[in-house]
């Protein structure tokens, strides 16, 4: 019997905009190709089952209405077990709305603050202009090859990192965290936050394997046999090529 690999999807029915399901499929398929038996735990409102067993949590973005619906549940039901799992080495990938909710707070244009769960040392403020378009990032995490990440951003929030979090990378193309300091996303222990959709992991298989390896290492495993990623990396390369063309046009 092969060992299981468990992906925990936070609010799959409500926080699943912009095709974030691609991240789930990529984690499950790649775990399978790496020889594990993939298992998906759907963490709906009111549920906190098996959160101890989760290797990688995924927390996606939602529309305002849906985000408001998960807010209370996140604080009342999920926060404690999520913190406990992360303390024991579980990994979290949070994209866009999920990224913001894991930080200290979101501040509206009127100055009103909605606290997040403070799992990562970031804060977000409402911005006027929406950042929309392709993003290319030079990743600052070790052991990912190629060193670039590609995706698509669509957000008006401006996220700023505190001293406890370091950037996931620096933007070569696109706005990233806030459009001013050149950073994109954050890494804090096993938690990775980012604004990249695209979906993110399918075109960045090296990041997917980084998350899988890191989660497995807490169970004393983590050696992964390289897979044939030619299809994924060809798509990755196309985005880099287009980014270069655009830079040339400017």
């Amino acid at each position, binding site marked *: 019997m092969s060992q299981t690999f468990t992906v925990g999807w936070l609010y799959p*029915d409500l926080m*699943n905009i*912009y095709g*974030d399901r*691609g991240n789930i499929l990529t984690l499950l398929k790649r775990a399978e190709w790496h020889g594990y038996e993939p298992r998906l735990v759907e963490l709906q409102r009111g549920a906190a089952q098996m959160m101890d067993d989760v290797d990688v949590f995924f927390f996606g973005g939602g529309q*305002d209405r849906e985000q408001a619906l998960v807010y209370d549940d996140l604080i009342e039901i999920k926060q404690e077990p999520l913190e406990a799992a992360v303390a024991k080495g579980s990994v979290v990938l949070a994209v866009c709305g999920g990224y913001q909710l894991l930080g200290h707070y979101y501040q509206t244009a009127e100055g009103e603050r909605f606290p997040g769960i403070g799992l990562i040392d970031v804060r977000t403020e409402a911005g006027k202009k929406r950042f*929309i378009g392709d993003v290319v990032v030079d990743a600052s995490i070790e052991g990912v090859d190629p060193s670039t990440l590609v995706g*698509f951003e*669509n957000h008006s929030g401006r996220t700023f990192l505190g001293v406890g979090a370091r950037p996931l990378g620096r933007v070569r193309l696109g706005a990233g965290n806030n459009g001013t300091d050149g950073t994109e996303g954050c890494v804090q222990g096993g938690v990775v936050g980012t604004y990249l959709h695209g979906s993110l992991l399918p075109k960045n298989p090296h990041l997917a394997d980084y998350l899988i390896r890191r989660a497995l290492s807490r169970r004393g495993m983590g050696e992964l046999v390289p897979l044939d990623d030619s299809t994924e990396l*060809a798509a990755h390369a196309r985005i880099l090529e287009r980014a270069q063309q655009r830079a040339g046009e400017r």
Partner: protein
Amino acid sequence: MTIRKVAAVWAGKGTGALSRISRRGGGTTLPGDVARAIDPRILTRLTGDLSQGSAVITGTNGKTTTARLLTWLLEGVGQRVVSNRAGANLIFGVTAATLSRAGADGRLRADWGVFEIDEASLPRAAGEVQPKATLVLNLFRDQLDRYGELESIAKKIERALAALPETAHVILNADDPRVAEIGLGLPNKPVWFGLDDPRVAGKQLPHAADARTCPRCGSSLVFEAVYVGHDGVYHCPNHDFARPAPDITATDIALDGFDSLAMTIRGTRVEMPLGGLYNCYNVLAAYATACSLGLDGGYIAERLRTFRAAFGRQERIDFRGRHLILVLSKNPAGFNETVRTAVDLAHATNFVIGLNDRKADGTDVSWIWDVDFEQLQNKARVVIPAGNRAYDLAVRLKYAGVAAEEPQTDPARALDLLIKTTNEGDTAHLLCTYTAMLDLRAELVRRGWAQPYWET
């Protein structure tokens, strides 16, 4: 008659002729820009010339087909209809369409205007056109990069409908929870339509569903039937929201691939040379709208038998003994249905799937991960990823467990590969986003296998 209106009409018409001659896409919207710059009220003035009035159609999927159906029905009783074709559904496209039918004196000589309107443009278009009937087909996630969130679109539509006079007809899809929420808040009761045939319904919401929660209490909605996307029969477990009882339904639905459908509406059997469950909604919606404009049900059923599909929505092209079926598929709900129809009903095996990321397609292609391409597993024999995002499609197909050919970003090479992989006498389905379809079609035209679209 104002001098300004005549000047605007002339300027607009001149622009239309020029862009048609230069073959830059059929001259569909530029004349509207020019005329509106000279007379900003030109659309209101021109539609004011219509002897009967206008009907406007909005929603994420099915606008073009439904507008063509309604036009077909009105033309069958001798009415002169002006409509915006070729997907030009912003205010400029509607203006250009009316301009193209105006005479030298600046008067629009037609009885009806039938306009498909982009969801976000409805408030402006309804305000300018003052339609006798307004139809909302559905609200699915689509091109979020352009529109922002579904919620803001829904609010715009609600505002537009609430501003209509009491005498205006509003025809709404009861099966769409987000459309139902809009309709239940209107001062006047709309006409509700919906499907009623559990045999063709699923029980599970697809991954692409958006409107899953109750607008009153936030609970997850319970679906007794799922027809297309999140459209079906639903209620809130707390009993504070449910599908409105439809005033007009389609029952006894029979589907035959992309070839035909049949259903019973108000006791009359309707048979159509159009395929797919999603087209049952379009036909039912056109039927309900035509009835509210005064057409007779028996006549409608008779006339529909002879309908021809709108460009690219379901076009057939034969070349060198191979049969091509072109089906526009532009968002998860639409794509899921066309893939399902192709695989389950048409038993299709050969595919070109085209994905572009130009403005009209949506620049964010993340949504392909919400399409259940897994349906192609073990059923498709040849799948060619095409379009400028063919490489993204190839990754999606790999994770769906579908063996695909090399991605082809060049439409000419995609077609060459199709010829190579599809035998004479066989059928291939081209499922494409809007501009990916235009690109492939342009290549078919270049090779003399299809007509330029403004001549069909």
